[in-house]
């Protein structure tokens, strides 16, 4: 019961402190700009006599992948910012004292904050990706059916970042926690590119280094799940896609299992850390 009270409180706080408003304005602006870009871009490619229909489809796929990747990046940053001071910030401000003295388990406080922020991210990712898919479909007339994998993969990755950031927040101050989590995120991002290079060069060491960064933080591997679906959607399994926006190699079932276990372990670590912390 108290878990939902904390979750609702967390959600309400994000609304009242204008986090939702700020995110809506920024993402609304981005989507508007993106729509204008797609409209002008598609006007050019659809009237270019040198481009076949399949090539047009690949270019539209690129545009959708790039847009989705940007939304994924913003969702990741939002997950980190929402949770970076969720425990330590409240302890430093003194607002945690009255709450933690109530008959509420610390596990419920951690999970409540996780759930509240996850609900917010679900709405953010769901609405923004739906708008993006709709914008691309309306302007280009191409409906990207497989693109619906992307929001789920993005939400999974955001949930992991949220759990890791909350876990960090039980032990580190807001600034130190932000630095650690963002660095991990950047390493995983770069690791994904290294993995692609290793695959392209057929170099197992480079490839394994990329895999290792995915185990360190499996957010990039989850984006690869969405990226591979988007690449297939655009019919570009010919090797034309790749780079940071997409992947031709979706993560294996094992990697998804690792990501699931990783999420649970991060939450368990957060609960344990907060239970042992003196406030």
């Amino acid at each position: 019961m108290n878990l939902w009270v904390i979750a609702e409180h967390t959600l309400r706080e994000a609304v009242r402190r204008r986090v939702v408003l700020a995110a809506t304005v920024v993402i609304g602006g981005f989507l508007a700009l993106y729509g204008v870009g797609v409209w002008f871009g598609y006007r050019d490619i659809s009237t270019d006599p040198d481009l076949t229909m399949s090539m047009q489809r690949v270019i539209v796929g690129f545009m959708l992948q790039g847009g989705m990747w940007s939304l994924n990046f913003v969702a990741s940053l939002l997950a980190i910012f929402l949770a970076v001071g969720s425990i330590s910030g409240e302890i430093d401000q003194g607002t945690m004292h009255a709450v933690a003295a109530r008959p509420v388990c610390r596990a419920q406080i951690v999970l409540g904050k996780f759930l509240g922020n996850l609900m917010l991210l679900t709405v953010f990712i769901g609405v923004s990706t739906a708008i993006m898919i709709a914008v691309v479909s309306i302007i280009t007339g191409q409906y990207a059916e497989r693109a619906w994998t992307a929001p789920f993969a993005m939400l999974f990755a955001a949930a992991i970042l949220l759990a890791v950031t909350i876990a960090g927040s039980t032990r580190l101050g807001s600034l130190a926690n932000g630095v650690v989590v963002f660095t991990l995120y950047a390493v995983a991002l770069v690791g994904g590119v290294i993995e692609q290079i290793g695959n392209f060069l057929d170099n197992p060491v480079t490839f394994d280094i990329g895999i290792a960064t995915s185990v360190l933080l499996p957010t990039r591997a989850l984006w690869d799940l969405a990226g591979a679906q988007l690449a297939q959607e655009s019919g570009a399994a010919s090797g034309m896609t790749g780079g940071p926006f997409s992947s031709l190699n979706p993560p294996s079932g094992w990697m998804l299992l690792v990501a699931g276990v990783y999420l649970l372990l991060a939450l368990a670590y957060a609960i344990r850390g907060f239970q042992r912390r003196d406030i």
Partner: protein
Amino acid sequence: MDQAAIRATGLRKSFGDTHAVRGIDLDVPQGEVFGFLGPNGAGKSTVVKIILGLVQASAGEVTVLGHPAGSLAARRQIGFLPETFRFHQWMHASEFLDFHGRLAGLDRDTRRKRVDEMLELVGLAHRRRDRLSTFSKGMHQRIGLAQALLAEPPLVVLDEPTSALDPIGRRDVRDIIRNLRAAGITVFLNSHLLSEVEQVCDQVAIINRGRIVAAGDLRELLAAREVELRLGEGAEAALRASGLQPVSEQPADGRYVLTAAGDEEIARITAHLAGAGVSIYEVQVRSNSLEDLFVRLADATDQ
């Protein structure tokens, strides 16, 4: 009511090499107002936080109305006003109290009723729709007090409840504390304001350097008198022979300070000294205020 509201046995807490609490035994009887005093850094806040389960003890045991401190059962018995009285600034006053009512497990109807009552009690009914960010320090302390009393707990822990209040606000809080006692609620009052403690507390414990240096009924503790005597030759031997131990002495000018349980003992001491042939030039009897007691005990422990 033989069960103590709070019972601590052999309580210790260390933060690395710093020993904040060094073996405290404490018994807070139910239905009384208990003052917990001590200079800055004495370990008061650490003890309070252990009682609330915010800090884990390194050793020893604490129970709250028979439940282990920090357990959910123990926390259900406590209403707490933190010393920092910092609350979520984005919330409205009534929304804030409703949130704490939900955490305390109150149902919707009870919350609605209690929120109205508490806002009325602390004089903030007219600000119920205002955000806490618009509140003054004193108003924050008042809403914090309302939050502590919201769920009608049998034990209320107030950490410096009047530090931000004006004299009228302090008087109001004293009246609230007296009313709580009349209703049989135990109040554990951690305060620097000794006059306030003197006015409302039944029992006190004074802590310094992580140890309890005095504890008991406030009236009994204050009944002890301090007597300053300026005596002639032979005083030291006469005092030693009678088993009297000066708490401080300045033999250079023959001044000795003794503690006496009351007027009868003062008369007995002077008669004994006169009988021993010691000249008595001056006798000053000082009533023991809580401040005197506090300062003397703090100084004695520091030495």
